[in-house]
């Protein structure tokens, strides 16, 4: 009995508080940069596609809405031949961003993704890839990785000594 009265009282009280609802879309709420909305694929500081098609984001995705296929560039580096996110399934959990070893995949504060046709919620690489570094301006995976690329030889990556001469007898 008492609790019912209390409930009534609380409801009554709220009649006089200021409304939280805003007049969207005229009035936009503040969204922090780390808000989890529409996913993008970013580029490294040299302007190359960051994603190396490692498949970790796809593996970690709880709703399995990421699918991609690895392909190889002429210099041996990996990149996704296709990269698809089915946003009609995506729950914006941000797990893919956490799993990504290259900072390629990032969530943005854009949540306005309404479509009349569900098929339009399927984003391919051309829709996902942006011309920028996103939240992580400096990182370039291939500068750290030991793989030889077009722009760096063996031994030129971060913290690497030059290639060993296996025929040398010196220590």
């Amino acid at each position, binding site marked *: 009995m008492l609790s019912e009265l209390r409930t009534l009282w609380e409801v009554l009280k709220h009649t006089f508080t200021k409304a939280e609802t805003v007049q969207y879309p005229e009035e936009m709420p503040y969204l922090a940069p780390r808000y989890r909305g529409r996913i993008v694929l970013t580029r490294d500081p040299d302007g190359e596609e960051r994603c*190396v*098609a*490692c*498949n*970790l984001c*796809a*593996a970690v*995705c709880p*709703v*399995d*809405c*990421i*699918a*991609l*296929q*690895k392909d*190889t560039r002429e210099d041996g*580096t*990996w990149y996704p031949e*296709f990269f*698809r*996110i*089915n946003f*009609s*399934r995506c729950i914006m959990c941000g797990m893919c961003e956490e799993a990504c*070893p*290259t900072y390629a995949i990032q969530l943005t504060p854009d949540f306005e993704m309404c479509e009349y046709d*569900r*098929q339009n*919620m*399927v984003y*391919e690489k051309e829709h996902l890839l942006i011309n920028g570094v996103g939240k992580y301006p400096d990182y370039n*995976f291939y500068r*750290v*990785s*030991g*793989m*030889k690329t077009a722009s760096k*030889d*063996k*031994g030129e*990556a971060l*913290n*690497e*000594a*030059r*290639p*060993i*001469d*296996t*025929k*040398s007898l010196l*220590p």
Partner: protein
Amino acid sequence: MPMIYVDGQEIEVVQGENILEACLNAGLDLPYFCWHPAMGSIGSCRQCAVVQYQNNEDTRGRIVMGCMTPVSEGARFSLKAENATEFREAVVESLMLNHPHDCPVCAEGGECHLQDMTVMVGHRDRRYTGKKNTYRNQYLGPLIHHEMNRCIACYRCERYYRDYAGGKDLGAQASHDHLYFGRHEEGILESEFSGNLVEVCPTGVFTDKPFLKQYSRKWDLQSAPSICQGCAVGCNIAPGERYGKVKRVHNRYNNEVNGYFICDRGRFGSGYLNSDLRLDYAGIKNPDGSFFAVHQQQALDTAAGWMSGKKVAAIGSPRASVEANYLLRELVGAQNFAAGFSDLDAGLMSSIAAILQATKAQNPSIKQMESADAVLVLGEDVTNTAPRVALALRQSVRNKAFELAEQMGLPAWQDAAVRNLAQDQRSPMIIVSALDTRLDDVASSCVSLAPDDIAAFGYAVAAALAGEQTDNPRADATAEILKAAKNPLIVSGSSMAHQGVINSAAAVADALDQTTSMLSFCVPECNSLGLALMVADGSGSSLSDLAKRASKLDVLIILENDVYRRGDKSEIDQLLSSGAKVITLDMFENSTLDQSDLVMAAASYAESQGTLVSSEGRAQRFYPVHSPAAERLPSWQWLLRLACATGHKKLSKLAHFDEIVAACSQSNPLFAGLVDVAPLNSFRDRGSKIPRQTHRYSGRTAMNSGVSVHEPQQPKDDESPLSYSMEGLNRDQPSSLMPFVWSPGWNSNQSLQKFQAEVDGPLKGGPSGVRLISSTQQGAGVSPQIHKVILKPHQWHLVPMQQIHGSDELSAHTDEIAELAGRGFIAIGQKVAEKLSVSEGDGLLVKQGEVECSLEVRILSRVAKNCIGYSVGFPEAQGLTAGSLVSLEADKKWQRSGPEMIASDKAVFEQVIGGGGASNV
């Protein structure tokens, strides 16, 4: 059995094993790198450290290597003691000092033993701030990709490639922390078993190059238990599929057959499955010779219309399943069914099938062959005709070493010690062949003889064994060796295309007259023996019979068979163009298909299920890895529907695969065991089917959304106990249903040990496959018939040379295999080459009656008098027949091919050279 104590827990162990094996057997997780169940221990990686205590009072103990410490009654160990765990973590940390930051772009990632062990020991943060060592990679051919930075110097690759597989061109170089594992210079790896490096190397140094081109992670592959179709050995494989493509083939453990290893044809020869030349739709021929695509039902109705009330004959196939052949044979009647062998092969196969059922020896599994302490090879280049068997024969010559080790009290797993002890002492292996073989390097003696003389040699050995006088001292010596052996093994086969050779092998086995002796035949195709058993009652027809009857036939049905490979062209032309309607079921365009009136697009082995009978007589089931693409259907389904459409009395009552198997097993006493080959369709493990997908299969809701966002249902598999799903358990089910290996914490193929009942032993799910034939031990009773070929001057005896790459019809359609196969060749001895003044790489015109072929010269080191070899099954050598007499002359118009370089890899190679290359670092 002794008891040991591990962390206070009492464990029953097997006398003679080591602590690592004991722990793994007990289900404990002890990290390791260098130890391999098939190759034993060398104690080089220091990863398997445990603490051993002197007695109950000892609390400090000392660190020992698990893989190097034999168990002993009452011994006390600890895996969990702090000094052991710290030691193991320190080992991984030091291995990681130089390890590149590569996992995301490493093809080993997700199935990397190094990743697993790193997680297992709990190493996480890098403390070392110095620079990492780096290495240049090598170009190792089209099959294997090299990324040397990732090496942890466990020596597994070298020990596998050189010690186990007998390769010569890969090994350890340099020293201390400069160790390098590669070739002396860049180039194609020579071993026929190089692909196993991918699975042996615990890191991503050696990875599967064709797989890398279309790479997917292990967890994303849909796999099914399958059987290699590359040859008759019947190795168990696990192909992995994604996005409708078969991406790679991995070994599937079967301790009686292939164990941990398969050959390169088996691993890399399935690329043809993804070829654009595969047939997708049924087609009916237009008058102008082109085909127009029709629906399945239309094709069936047309075929049924042609067939009703007419004379129908059919040709089966040694590369199609028992079930498909059975259906076809029932459909047209046994007397109208030709097995699909060439006439010569038909004779050889029927005698092999008969000998195997009567010989006094046993027909061994590969595992049994490894135990042979004396081997006689009659006329086979086993490495090219039954590759996996050759790998087993290489192990068999080590029995001498194991015998010596036993005398010294050394356990067999003490690999380095056993090898040091034995040095070059090997068990005897006598190879009698016309030409070089790839096993010559481990043979105790090689005898070069023409095919007829090989047969004569075999008979002489048999005579000597029977105590008769022979005038052949080498045969006498061979007989002595075989007689002295506990488990002698005779290997022969059909590749010489010579009945006498086969009979003489049977004669030797009979003369040995021991139940422990073994007789094994290498036969050509994956189901050759199954088909031979099917027509063993002699009721069938032969290709040439059919060709003669062709004009009286109305319809001819050909099952997965390019008959132009089986007989001479004029005969086959007569067969196919005599007016009968030709209906062909196949998956690839070929000459036979071009001559057909109706084509039904058959599913590949990766899209259908069936049973194959290996050369051992072992019936094994393969399952679809993915459901058939486009309008393909498995041949058995085409034939079953055709039988229904024509109203076949018996067959139209069958609806499911299991019913066909049951009907087939009743039709022939030899096939009685077929029903036990694998569980029925109704089999459920803990209530569900066995999943083909891993539990972490990704992209389920996105892979098809590019086409439509409305997700289709997973394909249903109504014919097998496997499902196209990730739901269900892949654990402890019958071994014939094991699609992949994975266990918590063990993502790499090393998780296999969780599926084995004991280390290196059978699987927990029991044996896989059923041996259909066992010998009555009465003796084959062959009678020696030796006929001698008389050669005119300048005539040579043509000896077939099977090639692992190129001779097999289907795998040769794989780009990498075609590259390795190169051009068709003629192989001659040095003397002949001098006489004809040609050298390696020149051209020779080979004339065999009307047929004339221009072939590349290869020079052999060991050639029997008047013999020359030719590459069988290569398009350039089409028309040449084994055993015929030919003349040779230098080809004036011959264009030598460039330096030994493969076109598509040239670019990569030049890049490497441009970048310095390993040779000029």
